[in-house]
């Protein structure tokens, strides 16, 4: 039981909030060093590779992979730890979300961060410009067999800041749809090959929802968004990109958003989740539970739910997020490896860090079994990947990837996503109109853009 869990442990102290406790940079440095020392030896060290946590020469790696993902990462680390040139890895797993990114930033600000860390590519714009990351040495990486040509241009373009590469993508993880093959079949939504047929128009999608609702007797398409800080935004961003309009956040503002297209998208979402054929008030877990319980024919989720869904035994199909507007686009993010800033990096360790990233990428077939699409293209070409079902059916999603508009405050687990989700949630719940929701989104984006940039 943590001491902060009780509201009245220190009754008379009017807490000035967490911020003042941080102190200046020097304090940060010691604090971060202390924190990482604690974490490194603490119960969070989940890896069971050869290296022991106390081994000072082991490569320090921070990541945010828990559950099934975490176990697969263990397997991959075990694989690269074998043999005479195997790594000694000291892995630290931290909880996903704002806290992970806070800790990563603080450790890098202290200059004594881990050797390698995982970062969502959408967060790069908040890390690279502020000096929180060190650039990759591409020559060194090429020496270990990984070069630019191994990645899709859409993803590679996002790894750079000022023309310098700061991140090496491990995967792309799109927002996709899972469907119950039986229900989709009875609703007449499958193509002759038995896969989900393309939608092609908003009308077709709405009708598909109705047809699925009739088949299941409950709901058509399940989508959990209540009290979620990302789901609504993921869906909006995908559909909005499908209209071909751009969403950019230039420093200093104002945000460049095609409001007509945005209103069209939000209105469509309102129609899709009207509360009758599709419940509009689910949270993430109840949508997942509803799909697992057969109360819906389709669910809009991240591909990382694949292991959970497959275990359920329902006849599972997966497809890229349906294209209903003019242009194919799928909301995506990417787990990437970065080198958090170190004040005085040891060249030998840096070299090992590069080699580690290259070797882990070559293990991505294991990673793909969790549902992620490997970013390292040679793996996609392997016959073993083509055999992975249903992963291979949405492998193309990486080519039409839409990430958050790059700015320091945007990206996975950011304030920006949370603030965009709030008006969208109101619109989906029927508490506000699409116009008002979009106006509020623009207002929120402009508020964030007006703030002085803390990383520039």
């Amino acid at each position, binding site marked *: 039981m943590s001491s902060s869990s*009780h509201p009245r442990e220190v009754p008379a102290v009017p807490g*000035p909030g967490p911020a003042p406790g941080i102190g200046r940079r020097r304090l940060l440095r010691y604090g971060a060093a202390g924190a990482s020392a604690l974490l490194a030896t603490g119960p969070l060290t989940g890896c069971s590779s050869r290296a022991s946590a106390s081994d000072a020469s082991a490569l320090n790696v921070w990541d945010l992979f828990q559950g099934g993902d975490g176990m697969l990462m263990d397997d991959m680390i075990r694989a690269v730890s074998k043999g005479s040139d195997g790594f000694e890895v000291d892995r630290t797993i931290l909880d996903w979300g704002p806290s992970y990114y806070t800790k990563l930033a603080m450790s890098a600000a202290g200059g004594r961060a881990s050797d390698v860390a995982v970062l969502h590519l959408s967060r790069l714009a908040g890390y690279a410009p502020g000096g929180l990351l060190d650039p990759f040495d591409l020559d060194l990486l090429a020496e270990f067999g990984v070069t630019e040509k191994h990645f899709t241009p859409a993803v590679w373009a996002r790894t750079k800041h000022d023309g310098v590469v700061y991140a090496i993508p491990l995967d792309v993880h799109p927002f996709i749809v899972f469907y119950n093959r039986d229900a989709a079949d009875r609703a007449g939504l499958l193509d002759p090959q038995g896969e989900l047929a393309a939608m092609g128009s908003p009308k077709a999608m709405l009708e598909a929802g109705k047809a699925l609702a009739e088949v299941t007797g409950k709901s058509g398409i399940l989508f959990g968004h209540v009290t979620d800080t990302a789901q609504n935004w993921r869906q909006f961003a995908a559909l909005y990109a499908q209209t071909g309009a751009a969403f950019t956040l230039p420093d200093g503002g104002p945000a460049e958003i095609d409001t007509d297209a945005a209103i069209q998208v939000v209105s469509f979402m309102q129609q899709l989740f009207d509360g009758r054929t599709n419940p509009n008030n689910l949270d993430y877990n109840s949508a997942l539970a509803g799909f697992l319980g057969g109360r819906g024919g389709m669910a809009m989720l991240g591909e990382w739910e694949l292991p959970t869904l497959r275990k359920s035994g329902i006849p599972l199909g997966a497809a890229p997020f349906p294209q209903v507007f003019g242009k194919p686009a799928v909301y995506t993010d990417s787990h990437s490896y970065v080198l958090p800033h170190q004040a005085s990096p040891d060249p030998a360790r840096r070299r090992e860090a590069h080699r580690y990233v290259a070797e882990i990428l070559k293990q991505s077939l294991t990673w793909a079994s969790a549902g992620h699409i490997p970013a390292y293209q040679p793996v996609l070409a392997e016959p073993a990947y083509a055999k992975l079902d249903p992963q291979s059916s949405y492998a193309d999603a990486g080519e039409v990837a839409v990430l958050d508009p790059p700015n320091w405050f945007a990206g996975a687990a950011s304030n920006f996503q*949370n603030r965009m989700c709030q008006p969208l949630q109101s619109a989906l719940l029927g508490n506000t109109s699409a116009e008002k929701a979009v106006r509020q989104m623009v207002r929120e984006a402009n508020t964030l853009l007006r703030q002085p940039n803390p990383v520039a």
Partner: protein
Amino acid sequence: MTTTTPIGAPAPTGEPPVAVSPRRGTGRRGPGPLFVLPFAVPFALFLVWPVLQGIWMSFTDSSLALRATSFVGLDNYAEAFGDPDVWSSLGNTVFFTAASSVPLVLIALAMALLVHSGLAGQWAWRLSFFVPYLLPVTVVTLIWTWLYQPDVGLGNELLGALGLEPVGWLSDESVAMWSVAALTVWWTVGFNFLLYLAALQSLPTVFDEAAALDGAGAWRRLWSVTLPQLRRTTVLVAMLQILASLKVFDQIYILTKGGPNGSTRPILEYVYDVGFTGYRLGYASAVSYVFFALVIVVSLAQLRLFRQED
């Protein structure tokens, strides 16, 4: 069980008795300061110093990123006073404080009176009223997240059984803060209950007995004898409660992340959002000192009230 030694002492005020020790000589200093050190050093290091550091930071554009920090004067405060999010989250904090403190005092009093009245199974009542307070915030929030589920939650299930429409416990802007308050009452009322129970059990019984002999009924004795004697405890409980409620953060952060539409975001979450996920430590410090000023004002007002009560 209910009759304890009638010492006539008022409710505990939380202040340790002051021991007056005889001094040996005026010129020599005893080892007193040494005994204070184990408390004074951490206090200075972890409270006084960060508070001063925070004040300094609030005048800079200090950031979590590796960027040079510069002095910006009162810019952060000017921004804070013009920031609608500061005012709305401050309003949320005050609303939560009002919505939680009143039931937390009244329900605790009612529970203590019930238990004190000599119900059978004393220990069971005391245990069930106090046990939620022992749970960590994560567990409490997890339980209530399920109760508040729109689809399969017990809350809407019960409403449905009564033929009522489901409620968006956490998704309706006008309901969400009340849901948080209900959780908080359930979770923390046990502490106030204990304070009240302790006070009740230490009240002298003579007045009550005398009133009964004079023919006063139970209600008359409650209003005219028991409650006036509990006044100091009520002041203490209310004061502690208001200060605790003003600090609300964790259950809201886990339950709603401040949503829907910022309707449950307290000022401390806003500080966290701009300072940690937004890196702007300088601005976050300024906002937290604005809040600090509010807490000081509330404390001073309460102190005045307390004095008048005496």
